[in-house]
């Protein structure tokens, strides 16, 4: 495995680290491009990107951990492009760089949190993207989600306490009926209304997912226990029941993990899952 810092883009203002396997790899095997998780620089949360890049190289996959503009060691853009627009442009620049210098023609995008949104966006619009690992991206509640959500809350002591003190909606209604003042609403008390996703958004996402599936783009969607809008494996597929994923969507749910998979045990599980998925979907590419 060897690592080399690179400066990318027309004005060489984007910095990244290329991590390359020692042995030659098939030209058609995709390379992974890792996008920033929020404002965290290219090493990733808890240095996750570095570990994943090195493990991928040991399995014959090239990768680039990239700082998008204004993050890590990359310069801010001066052309006024929005966050979403610049992410797509810069990911395309990174692909062009790897194609020119390494002959790579297909790519897998990897992102956590805001990086997940950027990865999905680019996977949708860029024909060279063969797959995307979307960690803690958008979740879409289903009828089953709500059943599980309310069942869990029903058996939780906190729910009953909030109802007694009037800190949740039901408690406030009860106290109004009894003519008593209500306590201030607790965090999460009004969750359900905040989870509602506009139908127009969902329709657009469904269309994008279908287009990706039709292009054979492989998708690995990973959720943690920190995503309140997701509570069982397979929820994403069920939320988009009209989309024919054609076997290209895999979902993993780790309720014990937090948003950035901070605990070491959770990091191990996540890295193993991504490696296993990469090998299953792309190792045979030749």
């Amino acid at each position, binding site marked *: 495995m060897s*690592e*080399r*810092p690179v*400066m990318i883009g027309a004005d060489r203002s984007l*910095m990244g*680290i290329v991590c390359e396997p020692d042995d030659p790899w098939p030209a058609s095997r995709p390379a992974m491009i890792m996008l920033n998780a*929020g*404002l*965290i*620089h*290219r*090493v990733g*949360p*808890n*240095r996750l990107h*570095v570990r994943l890049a090195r493990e991928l190289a040991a399995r014959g996959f090239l990768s680039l951990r990239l700082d998008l503009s204004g*993050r*890590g*060691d990359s310069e801010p853009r001066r052309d006024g492009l929005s966050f979403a627009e610049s992410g797509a442009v810069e990911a395309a620049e990174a692909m062009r760089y790897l194609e020119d210098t390494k002959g790579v023609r297909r790519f897998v995008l990897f992102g956590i949190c805001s990086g997940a949104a950027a990865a999905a966006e680019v996977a949708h619009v860029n024909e060279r993207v063969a797959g995307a690992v979307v960690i803690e991206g958008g979740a879409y509640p289903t009828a089953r989600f709500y059943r599980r959500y309310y069942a869990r809350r029903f058996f939780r002591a906190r729910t009953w306490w909030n109802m007694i003190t009037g800190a949740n909606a039901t408690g406030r209604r009860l106290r109004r009926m009894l003519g008593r003042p209500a306590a201030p609403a607790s965090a999460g008390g009004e969750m359900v209304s905040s989870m509602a996703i506009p139908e127009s958004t969902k329709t657009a996402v469904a269309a994008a997912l279908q287009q990706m599936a039709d292009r054979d783009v492989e998708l690995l969607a990973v959720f*943690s*226990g*920190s995503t309140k809008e997701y509570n069982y494996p397979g929820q994403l597929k069920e939320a988009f029941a009209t989309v024919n994923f054609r076997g290209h969507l895999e979902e993993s749910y780790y*309720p*014990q*993990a*937090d948003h*950035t998979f*901070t*605990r*070491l045990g959770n*990091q191990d599980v996540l890295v193993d899952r991504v490696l296993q998925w990469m090998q299953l979907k792309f190792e045979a590419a030749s």
Partner: protein
Amino acid sequence: MVPLYFGTSSARLFGVYHPAESAQRRACGVVICPPFGHEYIRAHRLLRQLAAQLSRDGFHVLRFDYLGCGDSAGEPQVGSPSQWMADIATAIDELRDTSEVRRVCLIGLRLGATLAVRAAERRDDVEAVVLWDPILDGGQHLEDLQVLQRSWLSDRPGSRKFAFQPQVSEVIGFPITDALRAEMDKTILEETAPPSQRRIVVLDAEDHESQQQWVVKDAGEWLGVMRHARSKAGDWHVPELVHSALLANKTMLRVAGLVAENVA
């Protein structure tokens, strides 16, 4: 800005060299010594901005990642204060070699400050050391991090049982090995010899009172002390901020200003 790998093939370190951008070149170079663990990630962008500012002020600057940290080689488990002090020495040699400066100023943040002082004791080419929110006692620092870890865990999914373990083996995503613990116990700023370099202390942390007592005790030895306005975003012990970028631009500019005023 030139990103590069340096050091030996068995211990490759990642660094970014910022050549002096001002026509007025300084005789002294600057090596920036970061904190470790999640504090390193929080401080990354701010230390980049510090390096850029200093290069505009005419300094050749090298910032770098310790072995097992950031983009440098090695697993996090290889990290220890003795290793990181050796890495600081390697970084000083690299900057001297690259920019042809003969002397350097070390700027250390948090544990980086402690390591910088200890590394400087072994060299005769360190002109000055800037200690930004220094860790006075490595063992106490680990205990503080354990408290932070427990506090952070208590509000995380499926983690409450870990919050009650007597000794934690990881802190906010990074392992704490027995070897690291043993060395951290011996990494104490108070026991260092009287300084042979000029020193600048910048206190912006929430636990500045104990730091200030320590500085006052040795006031005769110090070039200057600056206590900047405390800001919540600069707070190192708030569980909600462990994954947030450190926002301390005013302090960073003050650090750069102090270096520009006091280092040749």
